[in-house]
């Protein structure tokens, strides 16, 4: 291939038409409170792991809703299951159970 001196990067656009809805529905069945997230950021703010590694339950939920599974799993990789986010969540989401459920459904 001829080298034109530039490359094409893949689109970072979210396409909601191609989101895997079945998996998210399965997740919502296992942990219905995933639907209640209002993106306040309390979980990320209290997260100990996020000081060392990009970790955020809020962003992981959003990524799954937007069909970015790899990104969601990456955002939970650093989680040490300390449960601080469960304590601070104003919607009362059992984030520990949510993280385990995400691993069950989307984890390899």
């Amino acid at each position: 291939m001829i080298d034109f001196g530039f490359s094409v990067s893949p689109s970072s656009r979210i396409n909601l038409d191609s989101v895997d809805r079945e998996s998210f529905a399965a997740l919502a069945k296992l942990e219905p409170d995933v639907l209640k997230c209002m993106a306040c950021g309390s979980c990320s703010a209290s997260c100990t792991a996020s000081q060392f590694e990009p970790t955020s339950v809020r962003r992981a939920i959003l990524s799954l809703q937007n069909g970015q599974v790899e990104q969601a799993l990456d955002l939970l990789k650093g989680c040490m299951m300390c449960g601080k986010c469960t304590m601070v969540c104003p919607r009362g989401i059992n984030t520990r159970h949510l993280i385990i459920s995400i691993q069950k459904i989307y984890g390899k």
Partner: protein
Amino acid sequence: MKNNILVIGGGPAGLEASANLKRLGYNVILIEKDKQLGGHLAKWDRLFPDGVSARQTLNALLEEVSGVNCFTETQLQSINVLDKSYNAILSNGITVLADAVLLASGFDLFKAEKKEEYGYGIYEGVITNADLEEAFREKKLPSKQPQAIGFVHCVGSRDEKAGNPACSKVCCATAVKQACEVKEVYPDADVYCFYMDLRMFGRHYEDLYLKAQKEFGIRFIRGRVSEVAETADGRLQVKAEDTLSSKPLRVSLDMLVLMAGMRPSESGKTVGRQLNLTTEEDGFFSSADNLLEIQRSKLPGFFYAGACTGAKTLPDTLHEARSAAIEIDRYIKEKFSEK
């Protein structure tokens, strides 16, 4: 002698104020430009937060005004300020000598076609909040099951370019209510709400939001829709930014509901011009004082109730109507008791 009070506008504010003024012993003359009383309430199907019937709510208001002189399809032709009262000539030829006037001219819905990028009036699938209420009321929802439906908050609200920097107050709760209602009709459809921030300030509004998320699985996307276009197969392609992930977003929809906001009503402006009533920057009438004298205008004996002084919810409007009746009663007693 009973004092005459002229009430301009037969929506919820005018009806509730008339009923209360009648109870206080005044002779109330209510005029309404449309064929029927009720204003926007008459065009709505169900009301947030509990989903009660708009018709039943209106009927309750109408029952209270029996005995009030109601003139429908009647407008104010001209009005003059006399020494102590107002001389109003109505379009039906009747002249009213009123000791106080209450303006309850309400709002007009923002004309959604002005936001051309949303495609209202261009694409069939793009409708307004009022169109959806009408479809619910007349049971005329499309029978073909839509796969995906979107709601756009703040259409013509919080939009300086569209001429309305103010929040219209009711659209957030209306959008969430309507999102739940369409999901009830089309349980298999994906329903999205495009919002900037959710202003669920009233009692039970937040519960409605939680219900929309938890029971109906409505997806809330924080970001304003930037443009709507048609796809090759005739669906609507909607672009927005998901500002929570800072990524552009695209989705194909079958129906897009625009939450048109509140603008000062044209009929109210006509009255305002005749009396040189002052308005604030947002175009709504200015009260004598925005905290203590919201119901009073700067003209003695001329009062306001409801959305003519800014966007209001139905309960807010009814409170103002009652409070205007008390203010008018106080004014009449102070002004006319010395004789």
